[in-house]
C-alpha cells in the first residue's frame, strides 16, 4: 500500500526538476549549479523508481542505480574541473566568466 500515489510522485519529481533547472539557469556559482544538476538527476531517478513500483518492474531500480553512479561521476568531474581552474589561478566560481576558452 503505497504512501504516495503515482501521480503525487510525478508532481514531486516535476517540482524537483523545475527547482533544479531554475537553479542551473539562475545561479552563477558553479558549485550551486552542480548541486542543481544533481537535483534534476534525482528528479529523473525518482520517476524511474516510481514507475518501477507502479508497473512492478525491476528495470526502474536498475536505472536508479545507474543514475546514482552517473550523478556521482558528474559531480566528481565537475568539482575536479573547478579545482583545476582554481589551481590555474582563476579564483572565481562564476560560470559566466569562463566563456572564453583561453585557459
Amino acid at each position, binding site marked *: 500500500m503505497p504512501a504516495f500515489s503515482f501521480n503525487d510522485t510525478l508532481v514531486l519529481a516535476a517540482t524537483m526538476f523545475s527547482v533544479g*533547472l531554475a537553479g*542551473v*539557469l*539562475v545561479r552563477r556559482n558553479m558549485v550551486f*549549479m552542480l548541486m542543481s544538476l544533481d537535483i534534476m538527476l534525482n528528479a529523473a531517478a525518482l520517476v524511474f523508481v516510481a514507475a518501477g513500483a507502479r508497473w512492478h518492474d525491476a528495470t526502474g531500480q536498475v536505472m536508479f542505480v545507474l543514475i546514482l553512479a552517473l550523478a556521482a561521476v558528474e559531480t566528481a568531474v565537475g568539482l575536479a574541473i573547478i579545482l583545476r581552474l582554481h589551481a590555474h589561478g582563476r579564483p572565481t566560481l562564476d560560470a*559566466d566568466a*569562463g*566563456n572564453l*576558452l583561453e585557459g
Partner: protein
Amino acid sequence: MATFLIPLLVLCPLAASLIIFISTGRMGARGVGTVACAGVGMAAVLSIIVSVILLSGPATGEVQVTLWPWMHVAGFSADIAFMLDRISLVMILVVTIVGLLIHVYAAGYMQDDPGIARFFGCMTLFVAAMLVLVLASDLLCLFIGWEGVGLCSYLLIGFWYDDPANTAAARKAFYMTRVGDVALLCGLLLLATTTGSLRTGAVLAAVTNGQVSASGVSMAAFFILAGALAKSAQVPFQAWLPDAMAGPTPTSALIHAATMVTAGVYLIARLHDLFAMAAPVMALTAVLGTLTLLVGGCAALVQSDLKRILAWSTISQVGYMFLALGCGVWQAALFHLMTHAFFKALLFLAAGAVIMRARHEQDIFRLGGLRHAMPGLTVAFVAGASALAGLPLVTAGFYSKEMILSGVWHVRFGLTRDWSVTGHPLWAMALLGAFLTALYIFRCVFIVFFGKPGTVAAGRTSRLMTIPLGCLCILSLFGGVIEMPDTLPSLHLFSALLDPATPLSHADEPVWLVLAGAIVPLAGLALAWMLWGRPSSVMHGARTGGGLDARHDRLAIWQHIPDRASTAAGGLMRAASVRVFTIRAGFLDMLARWGGSIGDRGALLLDRLHNGRMRWYAAWIAGGLCVALAVAVLS
C-alpha cells in the same frame, strides 16, 4: 617467309633506336653511329629481300601480315597489320636505301656533336615510324607512323635546342602538321563510321561498291587531302618547311626532303581509288599542286640561304607530285617521289658538306667560287641540280617530270556530269614551273660554285660522307631510265612494276610535248648563265642589284603571309587565353569575396547565440525541449 620479314623490317630500326635511347650516351659517337647504320642497313637488306620475294610472285600479289588485334569494339575494328604491295614496296626501298645512305653520311657529319645519341635515336625512330607509315594496311595503324614521323621531325628540327628560334621552328612545324592531322583524323572517323573498319582494302572496296555516299566520299577525300597537304607542306600549309631547315642537315635531307614530306603523296597514291570517286577534290589537288609548285619556285628564286633554297624547291617538287595525283597519274607521282628522294637527298647532303667546310656559312652570297676548293662536292651538287632541273636524257628528274607533264596534258577533269575541263593550262604552268626550277637552282650553282671566291674553305670531307654522295649521284643521274616516254625507246619498267594490270599508255602523244619538256630546263639554264654565270653578268655578285632580287620583298609575300598569320594567330591565342585566365581569376575572387561577406554577416548573427555562457546554453536546451514537446503533444 615475307610475313616474318616484314615485321622484322620495322623492328630493326626500332630496336636500334631503343638501344641508343636506353644507353643514354654511354656509347661513344662511333658506337652510336654503328648501331644506327646497322639497324637501318639491316632494314635495307630486308627490304631488298622482301622485294625479291614479292616480285618473283604473281603480278598482283601482296603480302598481308596481321600482327595482333588493336581495338575491336562493336561496330569498329582495327588491327596492327602490315601489307606489302607494289606501292609500299617502292616506298620501303626508297626509305631504307636513301635512309641508309643518309645515316652513313650523318655518322660522319655529326661525329663531334655531344648530342649524337639523341640525334641517331630520333633518326632511327623516324625510319621505323616511316616504315610503319608505308607498310600499314590499316589506316589507323598508318596514323601511328604518320604522327610518329611528325614527332621525330619535331625533335630533330629542335635538335639544337639552345637557340629558341630552333625550338620555335620545331613547334611551328608540329602545330601546322597537327592541324592537318586533325583533319586526317576526321576523315578517318568518317570512313570508320560508314565502313566499320579502316583496312585499306575494306575502305576502298566500300567506296567503290557505293557503300559510302558520294558526299561522304568527297568529305573524306577532302579531309585526307587537308592532312596530306599539311604533312607535305603544300599551299596553304607551306610555311613550316623552310623554317624546318633549322635542324641538322642530314635531318633536312631525310625527313624534310626525301621521305616524310612525301608521306602525303604516298597516302593519296595509296587511296587513289577513293580520290578517283571525288572529282572536285581531285581538281582541287591538282590546282593546289600547281599553285604550290609556282609559289615554291618563285620563293626559291629570291632566297639567299642555301638550305632555304632547297627547302622551297622541295615544296615546289612535291607540288609536282600533287599535280600528278590530282590528274590521276599517281604512278608518275610515285616515280617523281623516288627520283626526287635521290636528287634532293644528294643536294642536301652536298649542301651540308659545303656548309660544314665553309664554317657554317649558309648565305650563298658569302660563299662563292667553291669549285676550285671542293671539286668533288661541286660535281655532286651540279649532278643533283641538273636532276632537279630535269636536264634532258642524262638525269633522273627529266624522266619523272616528263611522265607527270604528259599525264597532265592528257587529263580532263570531269567536275560535273557534263562539264569537264582540260588540263592544258595546268600543263603550261607546270612547264613554267620547270623553267623556274632550272633558273633558281642554277642561280644557286653559279653563285656558290662559280664566280668570285667568297669564304675560305677548310678541312676536307670525310670518307664516310663521300660514299653516300657518290651513290646518290649515280642514282640521281641514272635512276630514271627505268621509265621513258613513248617517243624515246619505250620503256615502262616502273609503271609496270607498280600496276601491271593497267599500264599507262600515251600512244597519241605528240613529239613536241617531250621536246618542250626537254627544252624548257635548258632555257632556264641558259638564262641563269646569262644572269649569274658569266663573269660580267648583270646580276653577278650584286645582292640587291636590279632584276629579280630587288623584288625580293614583294615576291616573298606568300612566304610571309602564312608565316605572319600563324605567328599572329599564336600570339592572339596566347594573349586571349591569358586574358581569359585573369578574368576568370578575378571573377572567382569576386565570388569568393562576396560569399565571404555574406558568411561574415551570418556569422555575426550566430555569434550572439554562441556566447560561451553555459547557463544560456542550458536555457536554450530547456526552451527547445519545451517547444519540441509542445509541438509533439499538440500536433
